[in-house]
């Protein structure tokens, strides 16, 4: 087997490789109330889900910017669209998704550089990404409501 230069103890080795699965008799456990994902798995799947949210949100945001740039009337029209409670919730969800995607992305970039790879640090950064994203979404929503909407003139 090819040995990667710089492999440390605790690296992935051939002995850890997945064994062939007996597809007819493989164990199945789908009791949803008892399934527990590790926080890293939740951060990972949320990174994907928030990515899909942003695929929808970023072109929408650019479309709004484009529309608002065409005339003074369109500018005010976009401001009105962003001024309702529904828009405030949508903006907060998008912001929370963006913050999570950003932090989970930084987490991966640091791990690529070998920083925070060990289990304890990885779990901590996964929790931090989740909690900071949720907190910033909620804080942004409260701030928007306190101002009475998105408050674009």
């Amino acid at each position, binding site marked *: 087997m090819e040995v990667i230069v710089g492999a440390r103890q605790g690296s992935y080795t051939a002995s850890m490789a997945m064994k062939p699965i007996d597809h007819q008799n493989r164990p199945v456990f789908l009791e949803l109330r008892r399934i527990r994902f590790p926080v890293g798995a939740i951060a990972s799947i949320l990174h994907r889900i928030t*990515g*899909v949210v942003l*695929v929808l949100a*970023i072109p929408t945001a650019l479309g709004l910017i*484009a529309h608002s*740039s065409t*005339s003074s009337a369109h500018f*005010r029209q976009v401001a009105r669209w962003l001024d309702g409670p529904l828009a405030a919730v949508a903006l907060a969800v998008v912001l929370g998704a*963006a913050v999570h995607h950003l932090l989970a992305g*930084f987490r991966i970039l640091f791990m690529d550089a070998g920083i925070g790879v060990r289990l304890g640090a990885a779990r901590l950064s996964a929790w931090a990404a989740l909690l900071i994203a949720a907190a910033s979404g909620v804080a942004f929503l409260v701030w928007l409501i306190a101002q009475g909407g998105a408050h674009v003139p």
Partner: protein
Amino acid sequence: MFRDSGASRTGLGAWWWQRLTAVYIAGFLVLGVGWLVVAPPADFAQWRGWLDSLAVAVTLALFILATGIHAYLGLRDIFMDYVPAGVVRVLAMGVWTGLVALYMAWGLLWVAGL
């Protein structure tokens, strides 16, 4: 770093592009959204003034290219993981590639016409 990485090198280019675009997008979003939240434009004239500057146009154009590449690679990974290889995946990738191309073309035309 790797000796004779062979087939394992496939995808290394995509890996780098995903990270390069990620860093640009992160910088743009933190500065751009931060700016909009801290100092929203007072009126249309100020808003147009920002959008008319060459620096904003170049930054926006790069953002559109970066998000297009980043999203293309991200959804490509999702399709490769969750959609079994076959006609459905090929169709999904075809539609997705078309949408990304449309997004980039629309974005660059829009920025050029600003």
